[in-house]
């Protein structure tokens, strides 16, 4: 959209203020409320924001012990550059619009560390090979009858999950009915904002819900997920409830972020399967995604809390495996049907950054294509409880960071500067946890994790 078109759009929707949104490395939605003249007047290079905005952790502490070249030597500004194709009407506030931005320098140049920019770059690289990516996320979260203020006063413990029973169950009509007032409001606002959704259901954990979306291009899919997380937070605030996207808020099941993706060619034909079944491209793609999965675990499971989810027989994968319709493997491959052919990557935790998670998965696939990597033997058995000769995925934030540091494929495709900064940020997270005095042997979610992740992730 150019400036006249923007003005026309703002007039027609009576929008006088725009909330800008950008997603940090830790998946925090940040931005500003901008008035219309300022928004329209800064379309080309965006509006300013402290460079610390892209260099701070979940708790808002700046990253002061490592560096990236986008930062100015004496602290300064960067910009949030709006992507005008993402401009939408709020629906609740009649004069408010929302627009998703990317972090750029003050002169408008891309910053490699911006998660959205990185995902766009991966998508474009795949496009140069003649393929388009379709992707979607399964969003899992926990819902409580306590307001955020009340939950905070309780230290986020002993909350009242939105559930009909104390037994863990799934697809249960009674559980779902308890969540329906909240979800009805969510769906209403989604539809006002023209954000597509497909279905929702109660999940296995107490108060756990899953929301599904139709496939879209990667950036749109990630944009939508970030918007929905914020929208759900707002609905929870308005209804005196609380919702959390932290991976493991309570004993029992945890929240994942299963990521489905597929490739189609320029004529929209599936690239993963053809009339003869699985294509060589699919096998190389699986080979690359699995070859890099140990390194990408760092991004797919980004927090201390993410790793509480990774235990055998509790739904997430624990091995570097793939299999047809195998939900106990890291990659569930669906290749028996041409039209729905896809890969479901089942490792990501719900607290993952959707831009980074998908970017690293696509980077793995690209590595597979570029280096013609072959996948390991298909897993036609259960992926949990396997003998020790099946190597396990990293089980701590530091081990995952170390695995990423050893991954030359991801460094090559993602960029060494981004990988190095990310590793430093995970070491920072690890140090923050341990130096806060948290018990490293605690088998339960700690106060530190609740305080850091429950409301902010």
């Amino acid at each position, binding site marked *: 959209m150019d400036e006249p078109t923007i003005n026309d759009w703002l007039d027609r929707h009576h929008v006088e203020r725009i909330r800008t949104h950008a997603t940090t490395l830790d998946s925090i939605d940040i931005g500003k409320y901008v008035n219309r003249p300022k928004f329209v007047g800064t379309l080309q290079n965006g509006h300013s924001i402290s460079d610390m905005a892209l260099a701070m952790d979940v708790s808002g502490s700046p*990253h*002061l*012990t*490592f*560096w990236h070249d986008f*930062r100015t*030597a*004496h*602290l300064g500004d960067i910009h949030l550059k709006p992507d005008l194709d993402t401009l939408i009407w709020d629906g609740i506030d009649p004069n408010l619009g929302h627009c998703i931005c990317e972090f750029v320098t003050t002169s408008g140049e891309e910053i490699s560390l911006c998660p959205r920019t990185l995902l766009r770059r991966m998508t474009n690289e795949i496009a140069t090979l003649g393929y388009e990516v379709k992707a979607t996320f399964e969003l899992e979260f926990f819902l409580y009858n306590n307001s955020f203020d009340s939950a905070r006063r309780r230290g986020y413990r002993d909350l009242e999950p939105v559930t009909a029973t104390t037994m863990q169950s799934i697809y249960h009509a009674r559980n779902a009915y308890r969540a329906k007032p909240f979800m009805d409001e969510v769906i209403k606002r989604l539809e006002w904002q023209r954000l597509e959704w497909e279905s929702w259901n109660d999940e296995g954990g107490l108060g756990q819900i899953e929301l599904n979306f139709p496939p879209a291009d990667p950036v749109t899919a990630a944009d939508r997920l970030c918007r929905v997380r914020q929208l759900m937070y707002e609905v929870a605030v308005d209804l005196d409830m609380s919702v959390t996207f932290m991976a493991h808020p309570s004993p029992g099941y945890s929240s994942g972020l299963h990521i489905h993706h597929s490739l189609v060619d320029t004529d929209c034909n599936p690239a993963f399967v053809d009339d003869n079944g699985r294509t060589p491209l699919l096998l190389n793609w699986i080979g690359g995604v699995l070859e890099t999965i140990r390194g990408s675990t760092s991004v797919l499971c980004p927090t201390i809390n993410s790793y509480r989810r990774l235990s055998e027989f509790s739904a997430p994968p624990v091995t570097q495996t793939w299999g047809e319709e195998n939900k106990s493997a890291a990659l569930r491959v669906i290749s028996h049907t041409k039209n729905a052919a896809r890969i479901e990557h089942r490792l990501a935790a719900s607290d993952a950054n959707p831009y980074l998670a998908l970017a690293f998965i696509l980077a793995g696939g690209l590595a597979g294509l570029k280096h013609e990597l072959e996948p390991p033997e298909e897993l036609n058995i259960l992926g949990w409880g396997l003998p020790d000769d099946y190597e396990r995925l990293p089980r*701590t934030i*530091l*081990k995952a960071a170390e695995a990423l540091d050893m991954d030359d494929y991801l460094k090559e495709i993602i960029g060494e500067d981004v990988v*190095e900064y990310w590793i*430093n940020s995970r070491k920072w997270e*690890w*140090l923050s946890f*341990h*130096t*806060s*005095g*948290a*018990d*490293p*042997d*605690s088998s339960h979610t700690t106060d530190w994790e609740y305080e850091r992740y429950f409301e902010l992730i």
Partner: protein
Amino acid sequence: MTVEVVTEEDAPPLVRVFANRFRLSLQRPQSQDLVSSLETVFSLKSTKNAQAVTITVSKGKLELTHGVAPNSDIVVSMDFDNPKASTHMSGQWRHPFAAYRVGKLLSLPLPNWADSAKRFWAMTCNEPNVPAKVTITCTDEDRSLSFGEGETATEIIGRSAVLEDVLAGNTLMLHLVIGGKLRYRGTMEHLAGLSQAGQKIMLGELHG
């Protein structure tokens, strides 16, 4: 005999920090003698939280693991953030000789600030975002040392005890600058680089 200091797999920071301290202290021959004749298991635990480290000393080797091992002869309770605060030791009556040696082991002197500065520079000068030239000034000795080459030097200014601590990798430079115990003249980029390099020493990622 060279004393070996090893840590458990995936060790938490506290274990790594103490391993670094021991490696540094044990560079002195008299410190090596202290360890080579000691056979004990002792633990250090925080008076404020769940952080703890167990050190097994056997056959001239120090093995560090997190937590308080049940077979510890001696348990020292201390404030890790304030090592000068009073400590409490249990087990010293049953193991008086070991307790005496452990006390000595925990109070082994660090190299002086000038030696630490040379070591720090040798280990970190090629690390990312470390400035090309650094001048370190010790205020109580009224003495400066410069390292590297360049037109402008990044300056680090402090008392000898603080410099010994930070240059040995015991404390993060950033925290001391923010806390006013160290003065610093330079860019944010270089402060980040120096702090990260010090952190690598602290965690045993850089050896010298």
